[in-house]
């Protein structure tokens, strides 16, 4: 399997994150690596920098990683996780400004075709153009 951009789904709810990842696998297939995480460090609703960093690690590819988030805290915590990556990886991970479910499906579809990170991101972000 050739490398593709990896997808990380970060929701406040582990159920939403998992459900979104399930939809991506169902609709796009298994050729794209997808990781998900949700919940605060106590397991309640929220997000967790450590889990986000692990999810990025799980799907890491030299092509890069696109992160889809739900609400503000997920975005800020994802940015924090990206900043904590080694410098050579930091520039290869983006947080997409897109709705989480639709964005994840679109990003994964684009990634499956072997598109580069910037293309994956822009396709996901077209959804939030207003």
């Amino acid at each position, binding site marked *: 399997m050739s490398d593709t951009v990896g997808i990380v789904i970060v929701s*406040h709810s582990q159920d939403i994150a998992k459900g979104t990842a399930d939809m991506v696998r169902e609709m796009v297939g298994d050729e794209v690596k997808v990781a998900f995480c949700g*919940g*605060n*460090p*106590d397991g*309640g*609703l*929220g*997000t*967790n*920098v*450590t889990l986000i960093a692990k999810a990025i690690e799980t799907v890491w590819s030299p092509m890069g990683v696109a992160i889809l988030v739900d*609400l*503000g*805290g997920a975005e*800020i*915590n994802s*940015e*924090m996780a990206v900043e904590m990556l080694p410098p050579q990886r930091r520039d290869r991970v983006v947080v997409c400004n897109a709705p989480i479910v639709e964005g994840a499906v679109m990003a994964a579809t684009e990634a499956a075709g072997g598109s580069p990170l910037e293309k994956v991101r822009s396709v996901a972000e077209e959804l939030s153009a207003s």
Partner: protein
Amino acid sequence: MIRLEPAMLASLIAAGAEQVIASAPELTRLDQAIGDGDHGANMKRGCEAILSKLDAIAVLPTGQAIKSLGMTLVMTVGGASGPLYGSFFVAFGEAIAGGRGLPEDLAEIFAAGVAAVASRGRSRAGEKTMLDVLVPVLETLRDDTGRPDLLQRVRATAAESVKRTAPMLATKGRASFLGERSVGHIDPGARSSCVLIHAICTHLEAHS
């Protein structure tokens, strides 16, 4: 006069963390009105994590210790307030580690923290956030450092600034989804900033 001797660093951190934990129910109440109701629980979790490793944090040089408590908040809070408060303390600690001295450079050190919060949240004062307390407090530190009543002035600025968030329209964070309905409620992040600043002032007054 504000002094931050290493020996009192642990007790100062503990005083701040304990006061935030004690205020958790109030912060939750405020956040239920205009946010998602987790600010109290999140801040409590972060502060408990700090208290649990306080001995290890407090033996570090002051700048490193404050950076370390910032990273602890980033890793344990679980909401947007983790990276926001975390970035404040990381930048605050880095300013000290980079050679700024307390108490004389307090305003500049505090300014580094405020800049980090603004950058992390892509926000500025006037948007009904913790910056609406931090920015006025920074102005007081800039204007009044060296005055004998600095702590009282900081305390008053923080308290007045929280109240001023009530009529503001939220344009950042979860409260922004409420639009006009956010008006009339004080901001939970502004309130937690005030709680922390008051706890630190009280501790410094009692030990100076």
